């Protein structure tokens, strides 16, 4: 049961994902206005604006909270600008949530938008020996797909997964994405398509790896009191049951982006629960819910194989058995545990600061039965999970 600490998602809005190279603010404005309209709240009434930053768009990207506040029209609202790589949207969510629960605001906007501007895409310049991102690129040429591939290879050699299992994830997600008007790629892929897809980082092919996209998402969250005043009832409202914000515990013995080495477990023993398991665990604890309660989940399928990991981290199956779930259709739309009914990153491509917020939009609409074309039947509890570079784990649980 939701408590008075469980804030309400009053409205959600997105700019569809795609690739146009426009100013990221333009996308954000569309999402912001859509979320406000969905919540039936005036911009002037928003007391706190939590922006998720983008680091490839100059100064305005670094101060997303300010940028969107000014673009919508300065109201004197409080703001924050958060960065946590792929988990930036979830961090912005937690920023707004904490400000509200601390009593500094009753209603807040959480917003993120991204674009791939022309003319500069390389990592930040300069020689920085202490920057893990510089280390892995300059010294090893270890790209993101390379890390995904190390992980995928483990699954094959240790768990007996096949590359077809990975491809099945894309087949499943692309099929669901066809029904989602906010998705960028609305094309259903088949196993046959994989044969023609070039290997990027063995064993992963181009089709196994998510693209980068332009896009924007925003949600309006508020206290139950505020929602009650607005709606006259809390019946049917989507409640935020948990936002976990988890970092690793030393020693972190699993090689994770962007580090080129793990911690050592020679002196201090590794924690019983690994980092990725703890992300979900902390959220379940906070919500008082378990994997059995989840109606649908949005997980970060940066690669196809990675989605299988999440099944296990989320407790949907024991470690090493993730492939069975996708083979048996358990995680397909229509299965008993639908994962990425939105189409996932496979259908969206990642718009970094917007993506975790988009997950919340998707779940909100699923729980409200508004996901025409890719609706999960009778969804009551939705979960979104992701992991950002540099130890940023986030998991959000919503219920209706």
């Amino acid at each position, binding site marked *: 049961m939701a408590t008075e600490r469980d804030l309400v998602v009053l409205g959600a809005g997105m700019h569809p994902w795609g690739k146009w190279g426009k100013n990221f603010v333009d996308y954000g404005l569309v999402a912001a206005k859509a979320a406000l309209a969905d919540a039936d709240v005036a911009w002037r009434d928003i007391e706190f604006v939590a922006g998720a930053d983008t680091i490839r768009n100059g100064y305005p990207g670094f101060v997303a909270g300010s940028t969107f506040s000014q673009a919508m029209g300065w109201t004197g609202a409080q703001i924050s600008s958060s960065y946590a790589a792929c988990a930036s949207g979830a961090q912005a969510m937690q920023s707004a949530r904490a400000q509200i629960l601390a009593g500094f605001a009753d209603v807040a906007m959480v917003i993120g938008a991204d674009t791939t501007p022309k003319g500069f*895409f*390389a*990592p930040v310049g300069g*020689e920085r*020996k*202490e920057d893990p991102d*510089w*280390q*892995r*690129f*300059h*010294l*090893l*040429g*270890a*790209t993101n797909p*390379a890390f995904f*591939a*190390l*992980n995928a*290879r*483990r699954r094959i*050699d*240790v768990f007996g997964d096949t590359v077809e299992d990975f491809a099945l994830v894309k087949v499943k997600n692309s099929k669901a994405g066809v029904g989602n008007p906010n998705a960028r790629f609305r094309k259903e892929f088949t196993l046959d398509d994989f044969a023609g897809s*070039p*290997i*990027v*980082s*063995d*064993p*992963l092919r181009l089709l196994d790896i998510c693209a980068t996209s332009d896009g924007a998402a925003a949600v309006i969250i508020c206290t139950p009191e505020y929602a009650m005043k607005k709606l006259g009832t809390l019946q049917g409202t989507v409640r935020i049951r948990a936002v976990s914000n988890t970092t690793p515990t*030393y*020693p972190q*013995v699993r*090689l994770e982006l962007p580090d*080129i*080495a*793990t*911690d*050592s*477990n*020679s*002196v*201090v023993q590794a924690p019983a629960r690994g980092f990725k398991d703890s992300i979900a665990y902390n959220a379940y604890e906070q919500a008082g819910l378990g994997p059995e309660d989840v109606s649908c989940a949005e997980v970060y399928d940066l690669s196809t194989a990675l989605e299988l990991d999440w099944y296990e981290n989320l407790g949907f199956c024991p470690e090493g058995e993730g492939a069975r779930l996708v083979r048996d259709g358990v995680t397909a739309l229509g299965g008993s545990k639908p994962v990425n009914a939105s189409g996932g990153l496979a259908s969206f491509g990642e718009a970094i600061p917007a993506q975790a917020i988009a997950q919340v939009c998707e779940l909100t609409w699923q729980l409200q039965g508004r996901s025409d074309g890719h609706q999960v039947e009778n969804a009551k509890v939705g979960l979104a999970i992701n992991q950002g570079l540099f130890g940023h784990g986030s998991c959000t649980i919503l219920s209706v």
Partner: protein
Amino acid sequence: MQALSSDTTTLQNVTTTERIPAVEGWFTTSEPYTLIGAKCTGCGTVVFPPRSGSCPSPDCDGAELEPTPLSRKGKVWSYTENHYAPPPPYVAAEPFEPYALAAVELEAEGIVILGQVATGVMAADLSIGQEVEVDLQVLYRNDEGVDHWIWTWAPSAPKGSA
């Protein structure tokens, strides 16, 4: 050079004058090639890349870490093969040649370290659990024509030659 190379080549390398490492202080540039980690003088934990100023263990106040050679040999934890040239700051060869990367577990140190695999050894030549050892090869040649070297993981010679 790869550990698989002939004795003659090995000899040549031993007599070669100073190799410029692509990054200072992370590995030896003369044989026996080893990675160099840092060891906390307080609790004894080890970290790679080496660092100073603060022990990586949250329970240790140690601020003194000293360079320590790591095990030369380890077992492949996982591996992959890059088929596209990484973006800068990687200096990619032109035309680009695919190369393998391996994450290798050093048992004594309880640590997994990523590295390029010696040139010519590809994913098909690797398997999880396989023994590999540290070797060196040229990472890039800079504008002044100076080679910069990096550690690699090379399959240990079948007969165990160093």
